């Protein structure tokens, strides 16, 4: 028996959500008296996985596997899950993980529980707490299959170091390519920007900003905080910002540690999608804006006045605390 994670790396560095998966898996393994293991595509040093309790790393290491392809990745993970006797497979909430998990579920005839927010409370049967109705509720979900696959909601379980020794097992998967059903082409990705999925801090702005030409200060605030930028739905529908920044019930979910909402009224669909964030700061000219009721900290003020000052003050704070 084991617990297996899909460890995703980007340019040789494991993503935070994979380290959260490692933390979760190693705590689960300890409770069950078993080992936490990882599947890695491409050649990456396993040190940081070992830091979070992964004691065996299957490295799938041949040319084609460098490039993500849902069917072939799911197939390879399924092979390893069977080989290692995995009872639980833990993934993050990345776009790639979300593509693999349902396919893996079919391979292993294993239940898939998505959006898991905390450590399982029961292991027989396995039961997980997950978000439903876009954070308007939670469900305790019981698994009736032998094996379970879960994806963790970002930043919910957190990072818990548990250093161990990690053995690396090289896997040659010549058949991997035969499993592919799509051919990946060009990638269009902003360099050096943090994605909403990975961000611990998200700076988000709405129609209160008046027009796309005013986003310079939003980008700057995000940059000084090491944050991702996001926006409300009308802002993306108006073409002021790309659709990939639209957050909320019908956009991307946000579960950051800090969410700063600037010139966003706080419609129910927006709130539902961002409410899993731990701390919310709202900046709005209208003291009656509904978002204030959902905020931890509120500032009534004009974004054009407040944001430039806030940028300067955070810069000063950062340089003092560096």
């Amino acid at each position: 028996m084991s617990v297996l994670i899909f460890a995703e790396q980007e340019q040789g560095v494991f993503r935070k959500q994979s380290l959260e998966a490692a933390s979760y898996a190693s705590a689960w393994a300890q409770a069950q008296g078993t080992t936490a293991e990882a599947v890695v595509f491409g050649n990456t040093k396993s040190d940081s996985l070992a830091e979070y309790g992964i004691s065996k790393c299957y490295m799938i290491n041949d040319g084609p596997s460098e490039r993500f392809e849902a069917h072939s990745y799911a197939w390879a993970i399924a092979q390893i899950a069977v080989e290692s006797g995995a009872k639980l497979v833990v993934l993050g909430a990345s776009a790639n993980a979300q593509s693999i998990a349902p396919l893996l579920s079919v391979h292993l005839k294993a239940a898939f529980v998505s959006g898991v927010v905390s450590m399982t409370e029961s292991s027989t049967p396995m039961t997980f707490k997950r978000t439903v109705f876009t954070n308007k509720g939670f469900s305790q979900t019981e698994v009736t299959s032998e094996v379970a696959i879960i994806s963790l909601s970002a930043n919910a379980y957190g990072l818990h170091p548990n250093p161990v020794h990690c053995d690396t097992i090289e896997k040659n998967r010549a058949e991997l390519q035969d499993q592919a059903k799509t051919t990946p082409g060009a990638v269009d990705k902003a360099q050096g920007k943090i994605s909403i999925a990975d961000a611990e801090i998200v700076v988000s702005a709405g129609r209160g900003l008046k027009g796309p030409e005013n986003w310079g200060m939003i980008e700057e605030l995000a940059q000084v905080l090491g944050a991702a930028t996001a926006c409300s739905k009308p802002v993306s529908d108006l073409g002021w910002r790309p659709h990939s920044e639209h957050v909320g019930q019908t956009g991307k979910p946000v579960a950051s540690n800090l969410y700063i909402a600037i010139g966003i009224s706080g419609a129910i669909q927006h709130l539902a999608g961002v409410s899993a964030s731990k701390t919310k700061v709202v900046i709005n000219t209208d003291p009656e804006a509904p978002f204030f009721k959902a905020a931890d900290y509120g500032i009534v003020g004009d974004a054009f006045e407040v944001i430039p000052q806030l940028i300067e003050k955070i810069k000063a704070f950062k340089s003092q605390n560096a």
Partner: protein
Amino acid sequence: MKILVCISNVPDTTAKINFKDNDTQFDTQGVPFVINPNDEFGLTRAMWFKEQNGATVDVATVGDASVEATLRKALAIGADEAYRIDTPALDGYQVAAELSALVKENGYDLVIAGRESIDYNGGMVPGMMAGILGYSFIHKCIELNIDQQTATAVREIDGGKESLTAQLPLVIGGQKGLVEEKDLKIPNMRGIMMARQKPLKVLPGIGAQPLTQDIHFAKPEARSQTTMISKDNLDELIEKLHTEAKVI
């Protein structure tokens, strides 16, 4: 080309969510239901395939008779035939297995489902269908074009997008981008009249079993008070974010 659009019948985005029977069931009383927003984008994209390539477009929902109003709306938007698989939707796996049986039966080349339904947020039905059927799979699909048997698509990845090609048959998990918000088709009077004549077929289902069960629901805990800070005192905000919330 034969297209199936999988439609999830979900509470309106503004609906308040309550649970009943000792928090073991979602309380649907007084809740207005709509086509899942992600599926609306897919349905409109399918209509364009119909207009431009002469595709046929069917829609299907797994659920009891209460979902029929939503299926009628899809017919009014322009779908040719609707299927209701007459069994309660219990989990993603069971729904995917039921829908896959229909796909096999009718031989669809393209299955359009949504990235996620906004009720149980599973994000799994399209991928599971692709797995069960052995079809190509593109999740979070934001652009889709088809020439003969080849699909050219764009999917969203974290922080960007990726172009890819795939052979039909294909399942996608679709979302905004397939078409824009302003392009969404809404039913007009003529469509509504025509929908009354169109077939809405009720199938018994294959008796697929779920792999999970929701045993208990809860609402989020009431949140703490909002601390208001003067716009002339931004240092206080920074101080609180640092020492109280510990997020910077």
